[in-house]
Structure formats: structure tokens, C-alpha cells
């Protein structure tokens, strides 16, 4: 049989077979049709894919505060996602911090957020009150409840966790911040999406810009809470809220806002009683973007007004310059334009600020590939001039630095995947 004589049949079959192979192969290479997430199963993974064995990213976010007796306290999640408490003497000089053994807290199996901007907080109040606030992660994406553990015996025991806000929808109530004012009123402020839920939709998208800032107060140290009060419409959805107690003893809040149409600058509000005050614009980066910086501000009281630090992208000299910036704010939050300056580190992230008298400390994380450096910017003239200091370094996963203050003394608490380090600020 000559080769060409069978060729029409054979070639036809071969052609069809080859075409079928290509066609089927293409089908195999495509993802499977959509199915509800709850019923999804992983398809046979390519060689590079190893979905089943990956360890989750460690949740290293901590809350720290100084107790009335001068001891440093810390709350954080362990590797199993359980909330624990540790204490240590305030460090003096350099050296390893002698943390106590971790004490697990009963959080009623809440799934707790402790990653970056949304972390547990620790707060000491009047008459032996100790409060621990955290966001309980709920089943739907972007949803959570603000929860609290309360002790009235200086932290010896804690009552079971409770939800702080009146609204109980499965929506965003996250990124809480808590603080006592000078009258002993507890302020809880959080990001809330109840207004977004109610707004008209175009397709699946809400017409509401961003989220909202809500708050409530407690005049009995967290035993009971007043109604949920809206502070402002149109906040950014995923940045921490900074609280600062003014020289007048009244609480202020600063947060990333979405000014119309999509300017992600910062707003400032005075939190007085249960009244709603108009908000003030505190930064003017004019950063127009539909994006999520996940990078909230820091706020500390000055002798008059406030010291503020924030991240933003600002048009400068024909370029968009991303930076952490510092400025002084008036008591109502209005920025003093001549005080705005850029922190001298283009890799600066998640700065925190503390102040006492004329002393101001700004700390931040600067990551260059694998190595993260903890830096400080210190002023002894109320923020007019600063000098830079390197406090420490670490490799691999690490939390943002948290400044903790006890009067004149300031320390930075910085957790990495192995330990929690404490650095004393020396001016």
C-alpha cells in the first residue's frame, strides 16, 4: 500500500484527532465554571501550585499599653489565632524584654483580626478597668463586629466578650479605636458600612462613596454603651482611625476620608459627648484614587493642637510623590501649612507618633526587600526640627511599630515572627 493511497482517510482522521486533542486540551486548561465559593474544590493543581499545605500569613498585629503600676502589657494572637496577654517591666536601656508567660484569654471562639491596621487594642481605665477591643471576623468578606473583653479587677479576670455597637448586621464594623477622655468617658470609634448597605445600587455596586465613621460612648467604663452615632459619611474603608486626647481633655479622631469625588485625604473631628460635630479636612495631598491604602494616620496631642503623621501621594514638581508626612494641626484639626514635611525615607510605612511637652517621636518601618528597619525621627523643639535614629532591624514577617507612652517615657513595641521587641526612645 503506497503511503499516499491511505492518506485521505488517515490524514482526515489524524487531522480530526489532532484538532480534537487541541480543542480538548484547551478545555482542560480553562478554569471550571463558576460555583458558589462554599462548594468549591481545588482543581488538580499544576506543579507549581500547592494550595493545601500553605501556612497562613502570621497575624502579628499587637496592642500595647502601660498599666497604672508602670508595667508594659501586650495583647496579640498566637500561632493558633488565640488571643493572649503578656506583661513585662518597662525596659530600661537595651536588652531582651523579660515577657511573662502568655496568658490565653477566653474570646468565645471569635475569629480575631490581628493583621496590620486592624489589630487588638489594650486600654486601662479608671478603678481597675482593663479593656481589650478587637474586630471579630465574620463569615462574609469585609464584615466584622467590634468586640470587647472587660476586667474590673486590674486584669486578674475578664468577662466574656461582648459586641460594642448596637447595629448587629453582618456588615463592616471594623478598624475600631478606643480611648478614655479626661472625664473618664470611653470612646469607641469604628468604620461602618450600614449606610453603604442602604444606598441605591447600580448593578452590584453601591452608589455610596467609601464607608462611614461611627462611634459610641460609655460613661461606666464599658459596662454599658450609648447609641451608635455617625461621625461622618464617606470614610476610606480599610485604614486605622487615630484618636488623640487634646490639651483640653476632649477626644479627637483623625481618619482617611474620601472627599468628593475620590480624594483620599484625611478628616478630623472633635468627639464631644453624644453630639455630632462637623468634620475638618486635616490633609491636602489631593490624592485622587480609587484604591485602598490600608495605611491610616497617627495623632498625638501637642501643647497646642496636635502632631499628625499620615501616608499619601501628593503631586510635587510634576510627579506624584508617595510619602509619609508630618504636620502640626490646630486644635480643630486644621493643618498648619508651614509645618507639613516629608519623612526622609521613601520606604517609610505605617508611622506612629507620640509627644510629651516639646518632645516628639515619630517611628516607622522601612523595608528594603527582606530586611525591615525600625527608624525614629526625634524632635525636642515641638516638631520644628528632627533628627533620625535607627532603632533596630529584623528579617521576614513583622508588625508595624507601635509607640507606647507613659508620661515622659516612650517605647516602641515591634513584633516579628519570633519575638516581641521593645525599644526605648532616648532623646
Amino acid at each position: 500500500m503506497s503511503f499516499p493511497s491511505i492518506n485521505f482517510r488517515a490524514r482526515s482522521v489524524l487531522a480530526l484527532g489532532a484538532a480534537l486533542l487541541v480543542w480538548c486540551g484547551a478545555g482542560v486548561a480553562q478554569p471550571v465554571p463558576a460555583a458558589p465559593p462554599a462548594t468549591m474544590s481545588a482543581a488538580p493543581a499544576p506543579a507549581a501550585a500547592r494550595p493545601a499545605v500553605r501556612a497562613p500569613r502570621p497575624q502579628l498585629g499587637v496592642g500595647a499599653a502601660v498599666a497604672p503600676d508602670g508595667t508594659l502589657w501586650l495583647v496579640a494572637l498566637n500561632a493558633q489565632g488565640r488571643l493572649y496577654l503578656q506583661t513585662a517591666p518597662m525596659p530600661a536601656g537595651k536588652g531582651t524584654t523579660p515577657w511573662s508567660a502568655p496568658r490565653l484569654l477566653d474570646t468565645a471562639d471569635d475569629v480575631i483580626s490581628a493583621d496590620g491596621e486592624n489589630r487588638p487594642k489594650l486600654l486601662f481605665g479608671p478603678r481597675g478597668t482593663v479593656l481589650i477591643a478587637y474586630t471579630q471576623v465574620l463569615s462574609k468578606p469585609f464584615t466584622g463586629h467590634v468586640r470587647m473583653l472587660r476586667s474590673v479587677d486590674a486584669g486578674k479576670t475578664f468577662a466574656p466578650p461582648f459586641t460594642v455597637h448596637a447595629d448587629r448586621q453582618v456588615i463592616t464594623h471594623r478598624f475600631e479605636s478606643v480611648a478614655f477622655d479626661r472625664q473618664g468617658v470611653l470612646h469607641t470609634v469604628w468604620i461602618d458600612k450600614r449606610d453603604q448597605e442602604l444606598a441605591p445600587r447600580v448593578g452590584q455596586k453601591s452608589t455610596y462613596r467609601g464607608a462611614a465613621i461611627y462611634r459610641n460612648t460609655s460613661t461606666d467604663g464599658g459596662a454599658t454603651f450609648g447609641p451608635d452615632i455617625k461621625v461622618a459619611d464617606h470614610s476610606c474603608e480599610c485604614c486605622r482611625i487615630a484618636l488623640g486626647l487634646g490639651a483640653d481633655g476632649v477626644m479627637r479622631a483623625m481618619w482617611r476620608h474620601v472627599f468628593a469625588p475620590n480624594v483620599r485625604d484625611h478628616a478630623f473631628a472633635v468627639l464631644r459627648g453624644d453630639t455630632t460635630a462637623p468634620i475638618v479636612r486635616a490633609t491636602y495631598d489631593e490624592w485622587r484614587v480609587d484604591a485602598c491604602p490600608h495605611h491610616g494616620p497617627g495623632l498625638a496631642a501637642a501643647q497646642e493642637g496636635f502632631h499628625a503623621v499620615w501616608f499619601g501621594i501628593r503631586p510635587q514638581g510634576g510627579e506624584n510623590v508617595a510619602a509619609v508626612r508630618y504636620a502640626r494641626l490646630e486644635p480643630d484639626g486644621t493643618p498648619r501649612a508651614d509645618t507639613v514635611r516629608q519623612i526622609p525615607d521613601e520606604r517609610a510605612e505605617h508611622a506612629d507618633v507620640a509627644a510629651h511637652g516639646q518632645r516628639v517621636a515619630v517611628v516607622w518601618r522601612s523595608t528594603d526587600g527582606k530586611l525591615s528597619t525600625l527608624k525614629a525621627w526625634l524632635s525636642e523643639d515641638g516638631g520644628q526640627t528632627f533628627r533620625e535614629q535607627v532603632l533596630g532591624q529584623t528579617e521576614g514577617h513583622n508588625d508595624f511599630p507601635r509607640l507606647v507612652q507613659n508620661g515622659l517615657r516612650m517605647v516602641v513595641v515591634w513584633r516579628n515572627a519570633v519575638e516581641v521587641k521593645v525599644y526605648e526612645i532616648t532623646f
Partner: protein
Amino acid sequence: MKSRFKPVQLLGRRTVMVASAAMVLSAWATPLMAQSGRKNRVTLNSVLRFDETTWARLVEKGPRPAAYIFTTTYCPSCPDAFEKVMAFVMQARRPVELVVVLMDVQGKAALEHASHYVGATRLYTFEGFESAIRQSVDPKWPNVTPYIVLLGRDGGIQRSIGVPEEAALKRWLP
């Protein structure tokens, strides 16, 4: 002996060739078709790892043109940005690799978020220290999402925080 190839003979040479060509064309065009109408868009159900070495490899050897949408689970702006890039791809009617990279969740947990990115052709998750991986993609990328990289057919790279400007999208898929 009866021919086992009778159906083929009945169809005729031209028909077979046309059918074969149609199948090959269909296979080639499937990525485009998967994105050209909402009915056909699919949700991914497998995850690839993205570490400090992945980006260089994708730029050098990965498919082109491609769009990489770096996102986080807490980023409510990210699904919108994905939709806008997707809409441009659909309008351009071009086969494009449309990749979602989730930065803050690993492995199967990422699949809970895949429904926000229906129509993506691949889903990666960061594996390792986020900042280090981020800097392997772009040392000047502040931790803002969505961060979108458009990789052109000629290897040209355009980066943006948020949705790329129309001009950038047109340069990417002229």
C-alpha cells in the same frame, strides 16, 4: 471490508478540513471567549504561588499581553478595578492573560475571594514576606491596592495604583 472511515468519506475532504480548522480556532480563541460575555465567565478554582522569584519569571517567560491585578482581601476597590480592566479587554476582543494576585491570604483560603474576580485566567497568592515580594515587583510600590501592571505584547510594562488611565490601556492593547 467496510471502511471504518466511512463517516469521514461521507463528510468529504473539505468538510473535515474546515471542521478541524474550526476546532483549532476555537481552542485558540477560548481564552477570549471565556471573557467575552458574562455568561461564559468563570471562577477559578486553583491557586498558584507567588514568591520573590515569580515576578521576574513572569515578565521574562510569562504570557503576553497580560494584566496583573495585585489585590488584598480587605480591598473593596479591587473588584471594581478588575471589572474595569476586564471591560476594556472585552471591548478590545483580544486574548489576554488576566491575572489576580492576592497578597494577604494563602492557598485554598484565596478561593473564597475568587468570586470577586470572575473571568480571571489565573489566581496567585503571595507566599513569603509580603514587603519583600512587593519590592520584587516594584521597589517603589507603596502598599496600596489595587496595584495593576500591564505587560504588553512587546514586553513593555505600565504600572498604576488603581485603574490605569484609558491612554495606558490603549497603549497596552492597541
